[in-house]
């Protein structure tokens, strides 16, 4: 059963912001993070000097420790409608997911998207 966690439209200043955590079902195996690049002030409206480093983290101990599942650098500029990251979840029970977005560059970046677990 798929679960979708919406990342509401928000403008992130330069720096790091954590989104979540969200609980992943025990039967879910993979995650897909999607960042909409077409929103106003989003990545498609910026230059490659602006970047968003997106990391999907997973915790198996109720958030005490986190491990990277997948990460990617999403640069500014017109590069399609969305940037995505896909990876399998580490097996376990009572898993938590968190998205860490790190904005670098000359200006804030508007992001919106979703985290889907399947």
């Amino acid at each position: 059963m798929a679960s979708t966690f919406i990342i509401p439209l928000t403008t992130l200043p330069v720096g790091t912001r954590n989104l979540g955590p969200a609980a992943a079902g025990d039967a879910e195996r993979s995650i897909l993070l999607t960042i909409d690049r077409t929103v106003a002030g989003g990545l498609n409206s910026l230059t490659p000097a602006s970047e968003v480093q997106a990391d999907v983290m997973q915790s198996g101990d109720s958030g005490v420790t986190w491990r990277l599942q997948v990460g990617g650098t999403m640069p500014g500029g017109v590069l399609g409608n969305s940037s995505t990251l896909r990876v399998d979840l580490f097996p376990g029970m009572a898993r938590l997911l968190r998205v860490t977005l790190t904005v670098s560059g000359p200006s804030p970046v508007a992001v919106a998207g979703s985290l889907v677990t399947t």
Partner: protein
Amino acid sequence: MAVAFDAVGPSSAGAGGTSISSLSWTHTNVAGNAALTVGCSYDNSTDAGVTATCKVDSVLITAATGNVESDAQTAGFAKAWTALGLASGARTVLVTYSSAGADLEGGSVSYTGAGGFAAAATASGTLSTSASVTVTGTAASSLVFGFAAAGDSINATSAPATSRFVNNLVGSAGNSTGNCAGSTSAGGGSVTCAWTLASSTNSAAIAIEVTAAAAGGSPQAQPGQTWLRRFHHRQVLLPPGPPAAAAPGAAGTIQPAPTFPQPRRRPARAVWAGISGSTGIRGTSQPYPAAQFPRRKPARAVWAKITGGISPGGSPQEWPTVPIPRLRPARAVVEFTPVTTTNQVPAVAPAGTIQPPPTLTPPRLRPARAVVEFTPVTTTNLVPGQQQPPPTFPQPRRRLVRAVIRGQAGTIGIPGKPQPEPTFPQPRRKPARAVIEFTPVTTVNQAGAAGPAGTLQPRPTLTWPRKRPARASTALLLHPVRTVNQPAAPLVVPVNPLPNGGSTEGALWEMARTGKWPERPPGFGPVGPVPSSSAVPPKPGERGWVGKRKRRFSWPKQDE
């Protein structure tokens, strides 16, 4: 010792993303001193000039291949990296490209018993339903890592290879890649790594022989991020050499101790290296942890329970089962006797009504002014009297007051009472004024007499020249000469018939004779008959009066 599979990262599904320039995942190798191979696929409409690097825990690792283009075009390529000596545990694998791709896919495989890597074999496929690459001359103890990137989904790994990961991220939407797979195959001679594809598409494939460690095992890596050098040929341990001679003692002197206190070294902090292609460590310092670390428990003394000693027996005190609250800082306590206070009964409210507030704005208070009330008093001037006549004799000048003390013999001080202070202000004494008495005299104008006949001479209409001060010297009176230039005719100077040649003396002569001022300017002399010789010329030094106003002149003496 043969090479064996250890772990795959991040999982059998690999990792992937779209519209990104870097891809990272966690690889957890079980064994220590493990070898690692990383494969990653770059898919884009063009990849000309794109470079890629790979880091493990922020340390660059060795590229096993260059960019292996799919279909030998520039629409996507595959690339592989290798590393040795990984400590066990979770490792972050980061693959970074110089330019963002439409999609990236990758995965990693770790090995045990590996001692190095042989040269990699690469292949590019064009419009085929399979992707394959062959590596030759492999050892039986080796393991071959195969990696493929294709423009359509990768269905399976052909036997006898073992599939380690498959990531069909974009399926048939890839340019020339967009899907990847990793596998391992046992070594021994020529080894082919092959995959079947969902459709006829382009592909790129890489095969790397992971060679076994030499007998005795490969040198152990030191704790921490220490990577061993990668060799492309088998490594043979050299036989042990003769024992080294004892090194002579170091010459020189011992460095003296510092004479000033050395600052304490700060604890090292991990530095996050930048992700974008960098060969060095850069970036910003790792931030301080947001979570609060638990407080370290205080050390407890444990009684060693020495047998036969003087110490008493027993066992160490058990740890408390409930959390011990942290000691609060001591606070001063003030003891006092509580006092009960009782409020008084409220007083009865006064009767009446409250005056309503004014509806008009009250005027601003004016400053108070003093009012003096008095009764008018009519005063009558006294009858004027006569002023006191002045004294008829000179008043002596008043002497200065001098205090006189008439002391009595044998006593000190002045007897009597001092004069009291005046009860009213003393007027200031005015200075004395002299008074002159005189008898007023009445004057009467005389009857008006007839005025002189005639009319008054009108005032002059011209400005009279200022009269020059008279000068007594006759010479000065006679010397000024007035000349008038005639317009054209030559000046005719009549010959002065005067005996003296028309000189000043002649004019004086004329004046003395006639008692008049000469009608002509002096010097020209009168024109007319020569005065008779009867005229008596003045003598030198004689004085007389000339003219109507009887101007006095003197004839200069002969010797003047």
